[in-house]
């Protein structure tokens, strides 16, 4: 299966929220009861039933006040921390399309993925005792279609296609607008990329991680302590057996009875 990339060109987003609505439609997610919080961002945050959200930021930079609309959803990491942390096989899987998909049938609601995620994407429902997040419309893309958000986008801000072509397209577009491709860390690749115009610094935007990476604590947990729990137990068991064969049991009347007994 081809690996795909979703490209989000911030220079083209008008904040129309067609992607947000399309996501709800395709994934059959109920609407939320919300209120006005002083921002056009609505609902205020991602949730169990909102997997894609247009975030509104007002930032100050050299060109004055800028209004930034940003499509925020799962980044579909190539090396996903959520999958690494997940204790239930099949609950979170990175598929060969590049989509990181959750399966509610296997989710046990432990919340480890929420803690592990460098982008703070998965959301928990206490009522369902499960997590949910964007799946890159895995059901659509395996059927040869584009994700619902991309299909709905009227400005060309969201585009989708096979990895190689999209990487070239992202680089070309970044050059064209003198911006950057985010995240551009070669050690931490994602199947969702942003074109960030030069007037905007990622760190100025809400709910972003300027330097995304697999959390070190998750690495220590899964790559060090996890194997060494078994290695430690096994090594000690081996040492104990060796001790038994070499030294024998510790007894008052063993073959090496000490002098000076009563």
């Amino acid at each position, binding site marked *: 299966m081809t690996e795909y990339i979703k490209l989000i060109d911030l220079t083209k987003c008008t904040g129309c929220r067609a992607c947000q609505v399309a996501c709800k439609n395709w994934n059959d997610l109920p609407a939320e009861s919300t209120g006005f919080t002083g921002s056009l961002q609505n609902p205020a945050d991602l949730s169990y039933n909102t997997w894609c959200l247009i975030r509104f930021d007002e930032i100050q930079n050299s060109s004055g006040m800028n209004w930034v609309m940003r499509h925020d959803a799962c980044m579909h990491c190539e090396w996903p921390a959520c999958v690494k942390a997940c204790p239930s096989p099949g609950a979170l899987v990175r598929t060969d399309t590049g989509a990181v998909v959750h399966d509610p049938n296997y989710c046990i609601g432990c919340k480890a993925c929420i803690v592990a995620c460098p982008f703070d994407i998965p959301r928990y429902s206490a009522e369902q005792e499960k997590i949910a997040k964007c799946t890159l419309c895995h059901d659509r893309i395996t059927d040869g279609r584009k994700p619902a958000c991309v299909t709905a986008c009227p400005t060309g801000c969201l585009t989708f296609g096979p990895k190689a072509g999209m990487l070239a397209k992202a680089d070309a577009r970044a050059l064209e607008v003198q911006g950057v491709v985010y995240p551009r860390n070669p050690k931490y690749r994602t199947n969702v990329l942003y074109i960030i115009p030069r007037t905007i610094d990622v760190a100025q935007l809400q709910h972003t991680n300027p330097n995304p990476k697999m959390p070190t604590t998750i690495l220590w947990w899964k790559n060090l302590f996890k194997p060494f729990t078994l290695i430690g137990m096994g090594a000690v068991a081996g040492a104990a057996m060796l001790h038994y064969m070499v030294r024998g049991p510790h007894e*008052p009347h063993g073959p090496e009875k000490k002098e000076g007994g009563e």
Partner: protein
Amino acid sequence: MGPRKRKGVNDMSAKKQGMVYVTTLQERIVHWLLAGSCLFALLTGLGLMFHSWDFIPALLGGHYAMKWMHIFSGVVFAFALVAASVMWWEHCKFVPDDLKWAMQAGGYLWDAHDLPPGGMYNAGQKLFFWTVFVFGIVVIVSGLIMFNPLAVPVVLARWAYMLHAGAVMVIASFFIVHLYLGTFGNPGTVQIMFHGWATREYCEFHKGKWLADREKKDGEESQAA
């Protein structure tokens, strides 16, 4: 003669002649609560950590059921650890003789000729107690955070997951030492944690100072009676 007499170390009315009553019923119950909950939490925890060990969730009714079993065994472990600490705190305080014992590795690795007469617990057992106590608290506190990681800053939650696994690594490895030395490594020991009695010879060898103290106390009590 009092209505209820404590079992003396050489109590001839006891059915086990030549045996010494080492642990109380309370100690044994707390010990097995602590050990049982710890082992069950370890088993379910390993089942959650290693996807390839799916025979554990298969036996226990799936990952979701196992999550709750893991949480509840952790709660039992927490209460048992409190009870064990109250019970063994005094016994497990280090004394100068422990250093002497430790310098000779208790006679386990080479022939030791200068071992001090032992108290209720030797330096190794004390070290195991303090290891379980300290790392047990780490496991319990981090486990509490993991129960609702969204209530704390994410950095703290990530540290909790890491420390939970790290502390288990230490306890699980030391547990194997405890298992070996409590059974095959020291014949006559394991029964102390089942019926509570050990041979006099065993106590002289392992717990010389404790035995002398107990006998002295028993002597004083019987004189007073």
